[in-house]
């Protein structure tokens, strides 16, 4: 599949397929950039397992800008408290209403931590209360089959953060579509390594990212 601008080759107009761009949300209040390697890892996973055209580099997009609307899947993480400004709130609200999906991961992995508490409050004000997503949801079958729900991370297993293994992810649904997906499982840490090192892993722990991207692209 070709990506890029339309070109003419041998008299034929070759129209490229639109490439998926992994976007990281840039917000004003905290350390939005605490997991810079996640983008590369997710892009690597998409390319490794699917034929979806994807741009090789991720992009960071300000939440306070309508540019966000051009990226219907956006990833948000951090350790510090999250407080959306009025502009960010409004942009995010429209973004989610129109069909965008916001994937949030607590890099603190701490339900008592400031990130978790503040994000839940901010999401409630923007679009509604985060509620547990059943492990039978189609997200867990969107590409790979995760029969037991969201895969556990090594941080959970090693007792970091809140020393809990979270059985479910949380979500806000608009009709039946996931608008906000929230993880306390610290995938940001789990996926924060150079993709080249995947060859050392017996199990690729980024497969769940493929499910999230495929879900966002098709539902």
């Amino acid at each position, binding site marked *: 599949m070709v990506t890029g601008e339309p070109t003419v080759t041998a008299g034929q107009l070759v129209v490229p397929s639109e490439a998926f761009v992994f976007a990281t949300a840039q917000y004003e209040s905290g*350390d939005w950039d605490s997991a810079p*390697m996640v983008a590369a890892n997710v892009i690597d996973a998409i*390319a490794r*397992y699917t034929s979806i055209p994807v741009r090789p580099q991720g992009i960071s997009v300000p939440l306070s800008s309508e540019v966000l609307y051009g990226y219907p899947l956006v990833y948000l993480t951090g*350790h510090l408290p999250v407080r959306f400004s009025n502009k960010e709130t409004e942009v995010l609200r429209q973004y989610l209403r129109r069909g965008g999906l916001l994937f949030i991961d607590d890099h603190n992995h701490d339900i008592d931590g400031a990130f978790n508490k503040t994000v839940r409050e901010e999401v409630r004000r923007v679009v509604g209360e985060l509620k547990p997503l059943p492990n039978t949801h189609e997200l867990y079958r*969107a590409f790979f089959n995760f029969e037991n729900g969201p895969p556990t991370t*090594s941080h959970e297993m090693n007792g970091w953060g809140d020393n809990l293994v979270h059985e479910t992810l949380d979500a806000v649904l608009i009709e039946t579509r996931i608008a906000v997906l929230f993880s306390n499982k610290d995938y940001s840490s789990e996926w924060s390594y150079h993709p080249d*090192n995947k060859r050392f892993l017996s199990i690729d722990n980024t497969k769940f990212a493929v499910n999230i991207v495929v879900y966002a692209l098709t539902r």
Partner: protein
Amino acid sequence: MTSVPASTGIRRPAVGAMAPAVSATGIVLASVERARKSLQWIVWMRALVLGLGAGIAALLALLLAARHSPLPTTLILVGALLPTGAVVIGSLRRGARVTAVRTALWLEEQAPAGFALVTLVEHQTQLPPRMSTQLSSQASPQVSPQISPVDDERTPAAVHARLADAYLAALGGATRATRIATGALNAMAIARLRDPLLFTLGAAALLWWFGTTTVARGNEGTTSSARNVFGTSNKARANAPIGKWSIRVEPPAYTHLPAQQLGDVDGAKVLSGSRLVIDGTGDVPSSVALRALVDSATVARAGISWPASLSAAPSSTGWSLTFTTTAVPTELRVTRGIANRLLLIEGYGDSIPRVSLRTPAHDSVLRSPSGKLPLEATLHDDLALASGAFEMIISSGEGERFTARTVRVGAQRYAGAHDVTLRIALDLDSMKLGPGDIVHLRAVAHDAHPAANREWGSSETRSIRVARQAEYDSVSVEPAPPPEVDKSLLSQRMLLVMTEKLEARRAKLTANVLADETSKLARDQTRLRLAVGDAVFQRLGNESSAEHAEGDEKGIKIVDGKLVMPPEQDMTGMLEEGDDSPVIGINKPLLEAYNAMWDAGRALELGDRKVAIPHMRVALAAIERARAASRLYLRGKPPVVILDLAKIRLAGKDTGITNVRSVRAVQSSTARGREARLLRAAALAVTDALSARDSIAVLRLESVGEAPEFANALASVVTALKRGGDATDEFVRARRVLGGVTRASGTGWSRVSPP
């Protein structure tokens, strides 16, 4: 008539003797005349009362008929007047004229006088005056001695005598008859007028009852209903079947607002949670129905609990009904029999407070967390503020380790104020802030709403960061503190400079001094190396410094005191299964620095400054690289990783599964539903404008939130229908505003093109 000649021998009475006899007849005749007038009056009155009764009965019959089919006002009025006129005319024609003779006959019926009175009345009218005078005079007792008794009855004298006797007898009888006239007339009046009066009063009572009790909603524009016959729509409202009611609104206690009397209204805008009291007149309604004018999903989302049932109770005014309003538009329908009345309630919710943080106006960095920081915020609530405060989340830590604590300062309680300014001077010393701490500051306010899960108002958040100690002497906003390695940089540079200076002064110093100074440098170098080692190993998992490490540490070997990573492993990062610490890119430079410091320290311990200096330079360069990497990283510019997609495309061994996507729900167009209801109301307006007006008022209330322009257009329709007359233009405008009819471009295509 015959006249009696003067030569017949009748003596003319003396002039004075004539006067009493004439007056007696005159008195009798006058009495008869009075009786006649009274009888005439009775006849007329009877006719009038009967006519009135007939008219009222006809009107009642027509109004009853109008319940089933509309009748024009003119027809009803004419239909009521015609019988009245016909009965009056008919009553007056049949023996309407009461003559004196008839009166005399009637008087004789009451007191028989042998038709003397009748004769008197009849002949008095026909006798010439001289004859009656003569008769009258002969009837007078003073005259009678002049008449000699005669034997021949045929003589004029005898005739006159007999006439005089008859006259006297008649006069007596007539007088007797007139004497009883008054009583008889009264009895006559009662007898003749009683039944018609009863009939008329009965008909009037029925009409009154009909007008004030059940009347089906007739045509407002046409005139079948009582209200249109009797007058204006205001009166019609007064005569509406459910009757008047009085609405009282008692806002929730926490608002401290007074109760409002709205009077007899059909709609009200009411704060959610208010108690609505309706006091009505008449019988208790048979049913009361409450209906939300929004879909059930909205009701569920608003968390509204609907009363299971609602009923009115008897009261001193008639009946009373109480319920608590909600934040959604609601319709209350009160029904009694076949009549009902609508109350439309536009509920609105209590807004959460609006908070604006004035000071500090921007994010900032503090070099030292001491002193007083002024904080100011404005709080506003539409009803009643309860409390306000400044809330801070203080985050400490770095890298992957952060802790946070929440502090509230400046809390104030309010007793229902609407606008407040909250000001405090924050004592930074009391916050116990440390270098690198970040304070997220905002102002919050709660209103007095008593709900447990009540949302609160908050301002935008300001971030105040405390600079780290070795940070630039600058107050520009830096998103990250300087890393620990900066301290090493300063010390290593100083060590290098000191070593170079010592080497330069070697010739001038004694060996002991040289050795002492070199040993000091060696010790400093070792201390520095240990600090760098701590930095390396902290990032590897909070272990202590490398000096105390044993064996392999996370793949790093210690060979001859130096940290060695196997060359085949990628030094930019590594993660093994089960490893719980990310290794970042600065490790390699730091390792190099550590190892170079080891070499430099060894050389300095041996007193070989010249050998140590190059190693110190290598260490310095390595630390600079590490510092640069960490500073860039912490400033949010991630290391650029560009993947070679062609190389990895579909290189994964696992394949996904084919799965079925769930279907999206249909977004039903509420505009279609609205248009359907609008068209139904338009059709209804032709026959029943009142019901159409109610339907449109309900539709307007339902549309206020989602389609305000359509709601405005419907308000015009309601106004036009209330005014009476043609509301077509308003209907057309409302329909167009809804967008249900749009022009399409006509092209040479069988279907219309997309909009």
